[in-house]
């Protein structure tokens, strides 16, 4: 287990570098983007002195490296800065939005895996039968539908025509249904196919024959020797897709006017409210690094071969 601890620490240090690089690139991109936040919030009649004054107030007159340094040092003290357009503290905005995003993305991710893993197992067991083919084709069709289109289609069917569910915004759990569907249906295919192919691969392995040959019941072989092995890559995929779903929710949150981080990010980008953009990207980068590390550590925990490789890597 000591190896695991060492590995974790090493991965976290790597992670810090990744976060620094990501935020630095982000800073440069925001700088290169055409337009200027001060111009967006002020009218052309505002005098040049006033603009310079505002720039000085926001620190925009300083060189980019200095700006970056200020931002990082403030960040370390928990200060994400203030929104340029509304003057609200970014940290407060994030705090109010994060629960909604987690509610949507988190449940989408969970439901996705809860549905896709058993279906993938079923497809693998019924390989080449009609059931297998239908499952794969249906999920692939959903995969091919763009989520913004699916979202609008669902709104038209269930909200506008059938008037069953709210169109947008958040007014209780029923508001969750449509965005959740939009975020689940297209992504079932990848988990289903991953589970299916992993299970098929493990079934072919000799150690499964061994398990049968020593007299284990089919159910025991299935759970202890097939699923336990096949789900290792699926578990890793779960962790890797978490930050990605928060990014992916930008579009879905915008369609459904969901009061989460995704919509906040989208609005902030369109108004060049860079303290918000930077704050959110920072959180996504942080989540990515944490989840990747967690995924790697979990794989090592689940698979002794990976633990052996880690040892080899160190010596």
């Amino acid at each position, binding site marked *: 287990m000591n190896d695991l601890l060492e590995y974790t620490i090493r991965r976290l240090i790597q992670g810090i570098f990744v976060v620094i690089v990501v935020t630095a690139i982000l800073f440069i991109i925001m700088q290169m983007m055409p337009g200027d936040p001060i111009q967006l919030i002020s009218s052309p009649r505002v005098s040049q002195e006033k603009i310079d004054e505002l720039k000085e107030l926001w620190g925009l007159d300083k060189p980019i490296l200095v700006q970056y340094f200020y931002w990082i040092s403030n960040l370390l003290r928990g200060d994400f800065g203030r929104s340029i357009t509304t003057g609200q503290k970014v940290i407060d905005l994030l705090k109010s939005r994060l629960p909604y995003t987690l509610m949507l993305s988190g449940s989408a991710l969970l439901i996705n895996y809860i549905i896709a893993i058993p279906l993938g197992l079923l497809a693998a067991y019924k390989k080449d039968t009609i059931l297998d083919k239908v499952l794969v084709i249906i999920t692939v069709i959903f995969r091919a539908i763009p989520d913004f289109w699916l979202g609008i289609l669902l709104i038209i069917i269930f909200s506008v025509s059938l008037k069953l569910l709210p169109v947008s915004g958040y007014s209780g759990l029923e508001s969750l249904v449509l965005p959740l569907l939009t975020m689940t249906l297209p992504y079932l295919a990848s988990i289903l196919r991953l589970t299916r192919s992993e299970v098929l691969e493990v079934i072919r*392995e*000799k*150690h499964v*024959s*061994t*398990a*049968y*040959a*020593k*007299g*284990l*019941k*089919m159910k025991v072989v299935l759970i*202890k*020797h097939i699923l*336990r*092995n096949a789900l*290792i890559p699926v578990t890793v995929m779960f962790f890797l897709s978490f930050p990605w779903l928060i990014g992916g929710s930008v579009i879905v949150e915008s369609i459904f006017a969901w009061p989460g981080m995704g919509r906040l990010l989208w609005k902030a980008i369109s108004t060049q409210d860079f303290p918000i953009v930077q704050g959110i990207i920072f959180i996504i980068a942080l989540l990515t690094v944490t989840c990747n590390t967690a995924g790697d550590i979990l794989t090592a925990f*689940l*698979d*002794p*071969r990976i633990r*052996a490789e880690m040892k080899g890597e160190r010596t």
Partner: protein
Amino acid sequence: MEKDLIKVNNLSIKFNTKLGYVSAVDDISFNIKEKEIFALVGESGSGKSTTAYALMNLINARNSIKKGEILFKGKDILKLNEREMTKIRGKEIAMIFQNPLDSLNPIYTAGSQVYEAIALDKVEKREAWNRVINIFKEVRLSDPEQRIKSYPHELSGGMRQRVMIGMMLSRRPELLIADEPTTALDVTIQSQILDIIKELKSKFNTSVLVITHDFGIVAEIADRVGVMYAGKILEIGDVYQIFENPLHPYTQLLMKSLPRITKKEGRLQTIEGSVPNLTDDIKGCRFNNRCPYSLDACKGEDSEMLEIEKGHYVACHLVVKEK
């Protein structure tokens, strides 16, 4: 005369593939007596492994057709359902596989995988672990207390095959099927593994079915031999009869193609041609296209198995004609 432990009658196995039905095993019959080592010898693709998997009832029913019967202590294995078969596997018939490198589950320790087998017999935990350690001693693994905690990737091929043998003999089965047990191993390890199989076989009174392509292994451990070619058994006899008086041209050619230290000539003799395509409906003897003595009769009807001397059977028109 020992009793038959297993008797295979007219077993045929066909697989449904994209190219049509492949007849992997065609109407074969043989028996394995109690406490004997029976070897099935043949080239790759001759159907010997398929036969072994059929004895374990481990052939996927969905894409295969099985005919004939496999009588194990009077019961037909092919007629048993999965639940009944689970009781026989490991407990009465066990099997070790060709490649020990991937025949153990990589994510569990060697010990726990053997423990899993022993625990099936409702053995109390501490007692079961003691047995695991004993088994590791029996298959001559050094430092068994440490080895039970090792993962498969930490063991060499020979060690893994020892774990497999130990695991499969841990429930004291009456028949052990060893499918190419030494093929993936070094020559020095090979003979050690064969010694262990022989030793434990006499200790536990187990019958053994060895599947191999190597006459050297046959000479070393088998009591009786069946020679397989393209899904057919061509000749059966005890090991002396087969080695000293091979009757079927295929057996004779196989013997000639063995490397011998006493022979001075440079080149090894080979058998011309290749195994026929098993998707074709083959008429007559399956070896006739490669057989140097092929007769007209060989292309027509398939020859019956004939007992030439006591316990020595052969299926060949040439032998019939000469008699």
